[in-house]
């Protein structure tokens, strides 16, 4: 049987969901023979490949680069999973939505800055006015709420998907921790 081509993507999140993924520990070995990790912050691939079976996406959409990436990843992925509250609801990154972006930047880069005052304009992607969850822009096939989703939960999701099932998480996960 062909190995399942799996990818993970890190957008506007704290990396906690990826840490949770690593916390699966030795059970990762159980599924290692059935999967090929084709793209991830955890592996050294620069290009997101075509024909990915499953992509776990951590983080909300907060800047212009996130938006480009998620569109491309969506087009190349069969099953797109919103992993964790930032991807599912916007969560902590979206708390800035209650304020005007210019004020937020001013607060961070002028009011509280001691050197190099002013928001960066070169070499970093520009922030969008509002942070949004993935499904406000692209179709999401599976929602895995939690901040972060537990290692057990992520393992369950992977095992079920590898067995060809869409897991029912209603009794296993909720918003928050």
């Amino acid at each position, binding site marked *: 049987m062909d190995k399942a081509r799996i990818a993970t993507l890190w957008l506007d999140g704290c990396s906690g969901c990826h840490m949770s993924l690593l916390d699966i520990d030795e059970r990762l070995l159980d599924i290692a023979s059935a999967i090929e990790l084709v793209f991830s912050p955890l592996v050294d691939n620069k290009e997101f490949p075509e024909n990915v079976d499953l992509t776990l996406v951590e983080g909300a959409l907060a800047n212009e680069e996130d938006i480009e990436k998620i569109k491309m990843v969506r087009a190349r992925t069969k099953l797109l999973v*919103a992993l964790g*509250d930032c991807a*599912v*609801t*916007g*969560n*902590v990154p*979206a*708390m800035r*939505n*209650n*304020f005007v972006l210019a004020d937020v930047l001013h607060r961070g880069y002028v009011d509280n800055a001691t050197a190099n005052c002013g928001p960066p304009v070169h070499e970093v992607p520009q922030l969008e006015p*509002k942070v949004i*969850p993935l*499904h*406000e822009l692209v179709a*999401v096939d599976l*929602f*895995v*709420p939690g*901040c972060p989703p537990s290692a057990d939960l992520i393992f369950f999701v992977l095992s079920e998907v590898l067995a060809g099932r869409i897991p029912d*998480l*209603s*009794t296993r*996960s*909720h*918003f*928050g*921790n």
Partner: protein
Amino acid sequence: MPEISHYQVKTLTIDGKEVCASEHQTILEVARENNIDIPTLCYFNGLNGVGACRLCLVEVKGNNKLLPACVTQAQEGMEVTAHSPQLHEYRKLIIELLLTERSHVCAVCVSSGHCELQSLAQKLGVNHVTLPYLHEQCKADGSHRHFVADHNRCVLCTRCMRVCDEIEGAHTWDITGRGIRSRMITDMGEPWGDSETCTNCGKCVSVCPVGALVEKGKAVAEMTKPNFLPYLIQMRGKGQ
């Protein structure tokens, strides 16, 4: 036992099950007695029902309106539907409206893990919302010595108002504005800490279903609410 002779038992069906109701019992009370689970949020056993959240809406045959089970009296011969795919969708939508209207960020909320909105969302299968978040900034009032009111998490259930009025007799809490502009206020809108009516009893904090009324000094997920019900029923009994 003169009262017994006037005692009327009604029979009705809920989700096809034949059930009995005594006089003045609501559909919700009868359902609970018969282990039929109807989701509720504003309802609090021991306080007067108000029908504010609409989560408990049920269908009654022959009535083209949905009725809130928590304030609708059971009637002889009623045929009640408490669960249907359509009702389930309405209930999910109500949860979505609540989650999007204010700012619920469970990951940083003191009540996470002990919150009725969070557990209702899970129970009803709301694992994401389909409506846009409003991201409107509400006030948080930290002026009280012991408690915080964070209106960003308020679901306008009015439990605080009812317990403060009906049980404590202070009526510190009330509601101002209409529709989406509705806000809970203390006294005439003064900061809670300046309230002349509040007795600092903490009853409102105990019954608040979410992380809107909490004790000061709690970190994420630390705010647990005491089981207030036995006390409340006891006080009710004395008053009547």
